[in-house]
């Protein structure tokens, strides 16, 4: 660890600190939601450790609770995580000539908040050690914060009464994620079409309605974006 890395680590940590507060309720809710779905303490902590993805965890819990087929659970998680392919592609130049082990670790640790706060500065820096410090310090801090507060939720869930519909907190958490997304018109359309189509098509066999709904939503957003940009081009 050289001076450059340490300087990057300090700056990355400072940049992410204000945003990290938002992780706390999110982590507590994930912990409580896993328990109120019916997972044991061990299962909940195990899921949190190997998956480490709030959205994918909260999104698949209702499917796990209802005993949905494994392929649907996997596809849902994959769709929820497709944004990371884009983040990963955007960040890739910043990881050039970084050892493979560090790149694997960085992939595991990549979360929305650190990407949002740090991507631009990472890509602008020519100092590899500074970049790794700037990425790893807030990422590791986010991981620790997440694990600690999910554990609080998991262990604290027993103290809460069973009949409080606490699993609805998972739905609220997903709704708050939709807020920044819905500010852009084509995104809002993608969400509306995806949601409504899923409800309308709920009778399809094998829960295909949800997959078809998501594909229709993506198509609607994509088409709306082209119309919008064509309108602006005139």
């Amino acid at each position, binding site marked *: 660890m050289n001076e450059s890395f340490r300087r990057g680590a300090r700056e990355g940590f400072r940049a992410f600190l204000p945003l990290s507060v938002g992780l706390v309720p999110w982590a507590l809710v994930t912990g409580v939601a896993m328990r109120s779905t019916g997972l044991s303490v061990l299962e909940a902590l195990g899921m949190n450790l190997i998956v480490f993805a709030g959205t994918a965890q909260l999104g698949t819990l209702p499917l796990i609770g*209802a005993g949905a087929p494994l392929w649907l659970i996997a596809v849902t998680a994959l*769709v*929820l995580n497709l944004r990371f392919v884009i983040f990963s592609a955007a960040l*890739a130049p910043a990881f050039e000539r970084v050892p493979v082990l560090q790149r694997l670790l960085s992939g595991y640790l*990549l979360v929305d908040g650190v990407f949002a706060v740090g991507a631009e500065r990472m890509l602008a820096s020519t100092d590899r050690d500074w970049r790794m410090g700037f990425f790893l310090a807030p990422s590791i801090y986010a991981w620790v914060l997440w694990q600690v507060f999910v554990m609080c939720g998991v262990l604290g869930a027993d103290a809460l009464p069973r009949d409080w519909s606490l699993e609805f907190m998972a739905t609220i958490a997903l*709704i708050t994620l939709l807020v920044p*997304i819905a500010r852009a018109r084509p995104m809002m359309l993608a969400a509306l079409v995806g949601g409504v189509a899923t409800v309308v098509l709920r009778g399809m066999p094998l829960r295909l309605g949800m997959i078809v709904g998501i594909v229709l939503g993506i198509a609607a957003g994509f088409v709306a974006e082209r119309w919008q940009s064509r309108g602006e081009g005139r």
Partner: protein
Amino acid sequence: MNEGSLLSGGWLWLAFVLIALATHLPRGSFIVAGSRARLPEQLQRALRYAPAAALAALVFPDMLLVDGAIDPFNAKLVAGMAAFVVALRWRNPWLPFVVGMAIVWLGRV
């Protein structure tokens, strides 16, 4: 959705492993493979809409369906919309949960 048929034992852990793969393959993809590989521009644009569509596909049935039938006048729909508006207007990360859950509980009284 049917209640009470939670995946159990080995199936549950297998589900966790699949969800983990579905998380860490996308995250690691280009960081590990390097920037020589590139995603086609059009595909990259289309993929941006996947999370929005998927989040809504998870949330809408929870708010609109009661025992499998559409019910536009239920507490969860009101609670969900209130949580959305609260998150839109205020930055406090706790407030959507407080308001949303309060409405759900009031709806049962």
